[in-house]
């Protein structure tokens, strides 16, 4: 970079090393420090990822010789309705994993911030708990709650809403929203904790100033709270959307993609194709597309977060 030569001439002092470096520019020795981590990352994340991209151009069971098929696996994902629907389902889950928790989280964070409630720490912990419990355990619990003769249906019948009772996870219309609601339940505590921390960091002066300017609660929310929470929102979106897109355990335990294909998601198909039907290439292609989608979504969110500035 030209900068380094400029600064050296400006300083006008001889440097001990022949390699010129601007003040503040990291020393090369830094690379040595990150080497161990970088090696592990390369060996266990990056190399397998590249290998899986490589595999995605082949067809076969992964043991006998694989046949090169070019982009056929990707064409399949674009044209096969089942494979394609998996991505639609994943996007539908974003509504439940991301948007609804954030909407509720914003509402509650604002409310909790405006009115001091006793024992906030307790509620925060209680609401955060679902995020900490193993998803498999959560899925088992909810599968039980939503079972045809489970507590939810019994409750509905007990309060005279029996006509609403249905086999939730066996219903083609309701299975995906049911699974989605579980996602909402898990994610909402995390989002709330993030946003609460963010809200507390917004200086009270800003609210006072807004009120002096005659802002109502809505204006206050739009002009002060929302911009103040920009970074927390980006983090919340990234975490929850990634969770929605890569959702596997909840689906595997609760529905295994059923009924029919109603709740099939990409990561479930990756597992199924790789381990159940031994189509390694197709699984690798699905995984690659999923990673690309997640990266793209995250870039969009990050950019939106910056753009709001």
């Amino acid at each position, binding site marked *: 970079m030209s900068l380094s030569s400029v600064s050296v001439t400006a300083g006008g002092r001889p440097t001990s090393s022949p390699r010129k470096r601007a003040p503040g520019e990291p020393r090369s020795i830094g690379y040595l420090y990150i080497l161990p981590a970088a090696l592990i990352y390369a060996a266990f994340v990056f190399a397998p990822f590249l290998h899986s991209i490589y595999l995605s151009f082949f067809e076969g069971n992964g043991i006998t010789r694989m046949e090169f098929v070019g982009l056929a696996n990707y064409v399949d994902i674009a044209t096969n309705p089942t494979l394609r629907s998996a991505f639609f389902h994943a996007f539908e889950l974003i509504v439940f994993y991301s948007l609804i928790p954030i909407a509720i989280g914003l509402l509650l964070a604002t409310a909790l911030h405006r009115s001091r409630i006793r024992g906030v720490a307790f509620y925060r912990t209680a609401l955060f708990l679902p995020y900490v419990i193993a998803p498999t355990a959560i899925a088992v619990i909810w599968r039980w709650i939503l079972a045809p003769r489970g507590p939810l249906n019994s409750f509905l019948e007990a309060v005279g809403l029996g006509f609403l009772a249905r086999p939730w996870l066996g219903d083609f219309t309701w299975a995906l929203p049911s699974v989605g609601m579980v996602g909402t339940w898990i994610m909402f505590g995390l989002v709330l904790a993030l946003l609460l921390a963010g809200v507390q960091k917004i200086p009270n002066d800003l609210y006072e100033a807004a009120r002096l300017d005659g802002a109502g609660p809505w204006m206050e929310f739009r002009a002060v709270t929302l911009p103040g929470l920009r970074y927390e929102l980006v983090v919340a979106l990234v975490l929850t959307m990634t969770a929605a897109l890569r959702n596997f355990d909840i689906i595997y335990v609760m529905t*295994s993609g059923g009924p029919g294909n109603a709740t099939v998601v990409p990561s479930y198909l990756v597992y199924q194709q790789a381990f159940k*039907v031994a189509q390694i290439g197709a699984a690798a292609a699905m995984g690659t597309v999923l990673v690309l989608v997640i990266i793209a979504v995250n870039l969009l969110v990050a950019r939106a977060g910056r753009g709001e500035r």
Partner: protein
Amino acid sequence: MKNTTIGRRGSGSLLRPRSAAILSLAAVGLVLAACSSGGSSTESSSGAPAPSSSGAAPTSEAPAEPVELWVQSGNGGADALLAGYEELNAAFEAANPGVTIKFEVKSFTELVDTLPLQLSGDDVPDVTQVNQGYGSLGQLVTSGLVAPLDDIATASDWAGRQGEALIALNGRFSPDGKDMGAGELYGVSATGAWVGLYINKEIAKSLGYDAAPTSLEEMEAMLDKAKEAGVPGLMFGATDGGEQIWLMANLLMGYTSPQTVTDVINGVNEQLPPETLQAAETMQKWAEAGYLTEGWAALDSTEVLGMFAEGEGLFALNGSWNVFQSDTPENYGLVPFPLASASEIGAIASGDLPWSVPTNAKNPDLAKKYIDFITSPEASEIWIKAGQVPATISGNEQALVEANGLVGVSADAIVQWVNIMTNGTPIGFPDWATPTWYDTIAQSSTALMAGEISPQEFVDALQADYGAFTAERKAS
């Protein structure tokens, strides 16, 4: 890592006997003879106490060096079955001084998912269970990972023990793995597993029937009577996918013949028989007529059998490996699903996971001897004592069932197995036909029975999967 199946439905051949057996443990009221085993790996020393039962002819050619025979089972969770294996292992060790058996137990899913990779390495078991079908054993044969057993099968007349039909459907493949049901023998089962109709005799009597239905027509009439009486006709749970597949295969067998369905499973033709549509229509009709358990689409197989065991429903469609104990065993029966007429007997009846010898096994001869031993007529006695269905027909079943005090469906499981093997035709599990068929049938049939797709669309979905795989298999 052992026995950690989450044990649900869906994919692959999940609802095959073994995983269902795992599930059965969770089911309330469905307790097989509970045994204390369940350890994942038992190593009995060669100085183990002598076996209680006999059978094994002591061999003179005892290995001079101590040998460890590594046996790998995929029956994790099926404790009663494993107890039978433990007893047989002790007997085998006693008959072969110097041999120690390392019996390793995996869950069905773990076994099937990891087998191809494991067997392609150097450190492989001497004997392992495998799963039948093009997607499992076929793949191992194609990859050259398992060795043929024909020499010992001929020497010990395995076909005479079990019948060629059963031997062929469990373990015969062409050496390239392209054709199932004929060719060399790559695996043989020790115990049997079949799918039949559980019947609540008391409810049947209250509806005016004093015997199990002997034809499809009669069964439909009974279902209709049950409906009128407000009794669930067929206890049905769809989330595992297995029950839809069995129902379809049984109906198709009723509309055609066991041989036709065997040809479908083996992929003889690329086209499914036209009667597949009829089977689909019946499946949809039964669901829409309200013959099935309410909420069937969200119930699993084990759950509904549990309800059945507690007195709910006229029929249940389930496996012989799920026989339950009841306070009133005489109220329950297990029979082959009815076909077109009383004169025809056929059932999905295969062996449990066949035993194979990996190509890279270190002690192949001893391994074959072990398989020969656990499938011998003498071993039958131990199997029946453990409440299991021996795949080998010894001729003493009735006497052994009585001697061991087996009653109700536990007795029927064994007696009717003999009936199917001697008077009828066993067929394999339909999902062996293609690696993806299990999922395709499971998913499409749920949609069919929920009225989401038409019978023709159902047949088209099955045909698309089946035709593509069969054509490709034949072409390559």
